[in-house]
């Protein structure tokens, strides 16, 4: 092969590594949410310009500079546009070191679908990098990759994923409230023990068991920024296939952590201090990532580097981070104060003040315009005496004379505003009518360009409201300004939420997700355990009726265990309880002790293989015994039956002698159980003696 001229971010490959397969990446060019609505109705999020370059280009450049040689780009919403863009870009040139395959399907609904497809098509053969199409990063992940490979080599594929996080303390503007996480990890092995999105919760709970095993050093960190870059083992795709309910990476991480004991999979963390990595997950993030980019945090992915290698995209960089493209004209007395990026062929009138703004290609800006934190895309026309603060103006929008855009306004594609109008904070104007959106709410992902065109016709029939968008305006207001005050709004970083046209459904889904979170994270057992118990009972009943072999029963119980996230210990306790309660279930609670034992003992014999399957280690025996004890504490009328049950279990070799004796000798936890043991004491003595006499006859116990 060709000699590796790659110095840059590529770590020097050892000979052994060179023999390995090329590094692959899966790029998901769809967000599967509607944070950027209604902007994303006309253009997929991955193609929205950030610093006049489509976001997907940043992601691809990041992957290429990391040394990725093969990238699979998965597109769903407006896949044609993404495909066209990529085919024209430098990534699809024959000389590109990173071979890009574009895979489109309208059927993807989530990250889970994409990864299941990866598995179905058998695309990845080795560790791969998983990113979204809106990640902007210059992190050198080769170190993380090495750590990941090392772990996999040492621990035989136990580590399935390494998530890349960037250190950034709370309050950082690039931290997104929605992605705020608290992570508990093992300091030495960097293993993730607990992963929880904070979602504004004031109280967080950590299950104690995560601190009880493993090493003696733990870290609980809240100073991490999720870069949404993960290094995945090939098993990740398989795990998504096995667990069809995993939709997002969040589901996956939680699933792996909950099932860690059962499946033995672990997730690790790579925390970096250098480099920059963030996902543009809402407009608030868009604003901060864009400003970080202009302030050169993402160096060398700066505007003047023209890393997409497109003709005419080059620009110059001068003092105070002012970037100018080719053929930019600036009127007399206009000032570009700081952190300004102006695309090519843009002309700016006289006496303008521009600061912290990004202006696209082919824009015209009139005189006496004030722009602060404005994001203007291509072909925008701004007339004179306009003021724009912290707003997004999309392609082809026209702002007429003397319009004042307050903070967090969005003018979507081809909107016309004004003249002489002031839009309040948080106004969203689009050419698409909000009601039309509600109509085809469900198949929003399915609607392609044709449908959009079709709906445009529909919108023309509805009149624009001149009071809202001005006398010459074109467009519909999506949401009036918020009730919240601006400060609160900013503090919560919720600009992304503001964009959502129907806040009810959004908050609903948010709330439901939250409650789901809570129930899962705080006490995942309660509901699941009850359901599991019923299922086990049903299984055993059916097994008895249909005379099913015990091996198959074990199989069923095992699958139930995974379905309800039940630990091995709980399985055993529940199984014991179900079996011991079985006579009550069948014949009512009014049984005499004799009747009870009469019907139970044969059952125990039938199901003894099932017990034996679960009760293996010494601890299992004790757990089983404690379950028996618990049950008989509740059923105190039948306490005398206990010794027979234990006896039978001993004879069937379900329980070992030592375990029973140990249980007996360990201190009772409360008065009641002490009483119980006392009652049993006499019989036990005989049991003990009998056992020492090599178990002459079972009748003697009675």
């Amino acid at each position: 092969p060709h000699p590796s001229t790659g110095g840059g971010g590529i770590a020097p490959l050892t000979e052994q590594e060179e023999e390995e397969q090329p590094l692959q990446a899966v790029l998901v060019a769809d967000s599967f949410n509607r944070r950027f609505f209604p902007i994303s109705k006309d253009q997929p999020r991955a193609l929205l310009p950030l610093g006049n370059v489509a976001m997907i280009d940043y992601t691809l450049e990041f992957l290429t500079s990391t040394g990725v040689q093969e990238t699979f780009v998965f597109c769903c919403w407006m896949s044609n546009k993404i495909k066209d863009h990529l085919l024209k870009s430098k990534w699809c040139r024959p000389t590109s070191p990173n071979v890009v395959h574009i895979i489109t399907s309208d059927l993807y609904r989530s990250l889970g679908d994409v990864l299941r497809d990866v598995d179905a098509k058998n695309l990845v053969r080795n560790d791969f990098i998983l990113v979204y199409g809106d990640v902007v990063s210059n992190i050198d992940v080769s170190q993380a990759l090495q750590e990941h490979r090392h772990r996999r080599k040492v621990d035989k594929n136990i580590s399935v994923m390494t998530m890349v996080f960037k250190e950034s303390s709370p309050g950082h503007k690039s931290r997104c409230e929605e992605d705020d996480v608290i992570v508990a990890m093992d300091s030495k092995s960097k293993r993730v023990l607990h992963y929880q999105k904070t979602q504004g919760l004031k109280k967080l709970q950590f299950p104690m068991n995560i601190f009880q095993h493993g090493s003696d050093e733990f870290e609980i960190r809240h100073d991490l920024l999720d870069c949404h870059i993960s290094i995945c083992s090939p098993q990740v795709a398989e795990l998504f296939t096995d667990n069809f309910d995993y939709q997002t990476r969040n589901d996956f991480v939680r699933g792996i952590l909950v099932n860690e004991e059962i499946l033995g999979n672990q997730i690790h963390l790579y925390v970096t201090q250098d480099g920059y990595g963030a996902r543009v997950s809402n407009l608030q993030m868009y604003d901060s990532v864009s400003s970080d980019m202009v302030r050169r945090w993402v160096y060398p992915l700066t505007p003047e580097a023209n890393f997409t290698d497109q003709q005419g995209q080059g620009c110059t960089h001068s003092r105070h981070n002012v970037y100018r493209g080719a053929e930019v004209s600036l009127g007399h007395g206009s000032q570009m104060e700081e952190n300004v990026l102006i695309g090519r062929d843009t002309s700016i009138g006289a006496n303008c003040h521009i600061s912290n703004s990004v202006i696209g290609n082919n824009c015209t800006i009139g005189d006496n315009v004030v722009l602060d934190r404005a994001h203007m895309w291509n072909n925008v026309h701004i007339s004179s005496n306009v003021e724009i603060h912290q707003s997004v103006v999309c392609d082809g929008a026209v702002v007429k004379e003397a319009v004042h855009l307050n903070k967090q306004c969005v003018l979507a594609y081809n909107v016309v505003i004004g003249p002489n109008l002031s839009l309040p904070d948080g106004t969203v104007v689009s050419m698409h009518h909000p009601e039309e959106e509600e109509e085809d709410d469900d198949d929003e992902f399915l609607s392609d360009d044709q449908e959009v065109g079709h709906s445009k016709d529909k919108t023309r029939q509805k009149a624009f409201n001149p009071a809202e968008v001005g006398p010459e305006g074109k467009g519909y207001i999506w949401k009036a300004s918020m009730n919240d005050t601006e400060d609160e709004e900013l503090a919560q970083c919720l600009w992304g939420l503001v964009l959502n046209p129907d806040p009810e459904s959004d908050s609903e889904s948010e709330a439901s997700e939250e409650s789901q979170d809570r129930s899962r994270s705080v006490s995942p057992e309660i509901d699941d355990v009850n359901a599991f118990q019923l299922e086990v009972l049903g299984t055993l009943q059916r097994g008895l009726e249909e005379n099913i072999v015990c091996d198959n029963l074990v199989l069923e119980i095992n699958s139930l265990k995974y379905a309800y996230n039940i630990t091995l210990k709980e399985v055993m306790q529940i199984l014991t309880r179900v079996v011991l309660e079985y006579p009550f279930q069948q014949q009512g609670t009014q049984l005499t002790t004799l009747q009870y034992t009469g019907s139970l003992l044969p059952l125990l014999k039938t199901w003894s293989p099932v017990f034996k399957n679960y009760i293996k280690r010494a601890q299992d025996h004790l757990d089983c015994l404690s379950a028996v004890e618990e049950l008989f504490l509740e059923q105190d009328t039948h306490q005398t039956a206990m010794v027979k049950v234990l006896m039978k279990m001993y004879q069937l070799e379900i329980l070992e002698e030592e375990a029973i004796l140990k249980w007996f000798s360990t201190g009772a936890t409360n008065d009641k159980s002490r009483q119980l043991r006392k009652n049993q004491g006499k019989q036990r003595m005989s049991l003990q003696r009998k056992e020492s006499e090599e178990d002459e006859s079972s009748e003697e116990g009675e």
Partner: protein
Amino acid sequence: MPGADKEADLTERIEAFLADLKRGGCGTGPIRGSGETARETTALLRKVTAQARWSSAGDLMEIIRKEGRRMTAAQPSETTVGNMVLRVLKIIREEYARSRGSSEETDQQESLHKLQHFVHLKANVIEAINELLTELDGTTDNIAMQALEHIHSNEVIMTVGRSRTVEAFLKDAARKRKFHVIVAECAPFCQGHEMATNLSKASIETTVIADAAIFAVMSRVNKVIIGTQTVLANGGLRAVNGTHTVALAARHHSTPLIVCAPMFKLSPQFPNEEDTFHKFVSPHEVLPFTEGEILSKVNVHCPVFDYVPPELITLFISNIGGNAPSYIYRLMSELYHPEDHDL
């Protein structure tokens, strides 16, 4: 088709080199030394000469110019790339003139495009480029060899940041003489630390000082020896941040300032307010990203280079000997053809 194959291979190599240049320098300066960049550029240009399709010297020069423009545009701060392109262009001119047997200037312009002595020309140009490569390989050694003429026993030498050339220079002198080196750490990248480690490994008595202490310490210093990123056409320097401070302090104390710069760092560029002159990298080194809230309230810049005017410099030591700053223009005219200055 082997021809097409070759060309594909060539473009792939060039693209890889360009991508590499664009990513070069993740804050702490280029990962490779400029010497290595120079060698790589020259080797690539040799490959272009050997593999590209051209039928006359004019064609070849046009091809080299085209690739050169792309290479310099990829990383404008890396002037060695442009310098090497100019050197190769000059070589082609010379070889062409020699093959014609004519004196240099006579109606060369028209005849450059005529097809003459093609086979010989190609071989000769490649041969000359090979010579250039050999010269590049030896530059650091050639400079280091002169160390004993400039460093005397028990002297106190100050340097700033890390320069591979200066490091070799000092180490060479240390083989024979005992002297003391003071290294300014050169914040925010602090390459001075690495320099000091390397020097002390070579058992040179080394002290690291903060940049703020440069002036205070200067009175004790006998000589300042620094490296540079580029030598400009007027004899000034474009060198790592902090060099200007050192030069001014040296001037105040009348301490001689010696610049170790191989010939390939000579650039026909002048220190005008050209936008490519500066290079700003990620502000991470100045104010870490982890700082949090403060970052949204301040503007942080992290420039990499200083301009040092020629009047502050005492002597240049290049691989062909010592020169005064006022003599640089003369070297420049020997190295590059005046018509090539603008690619």
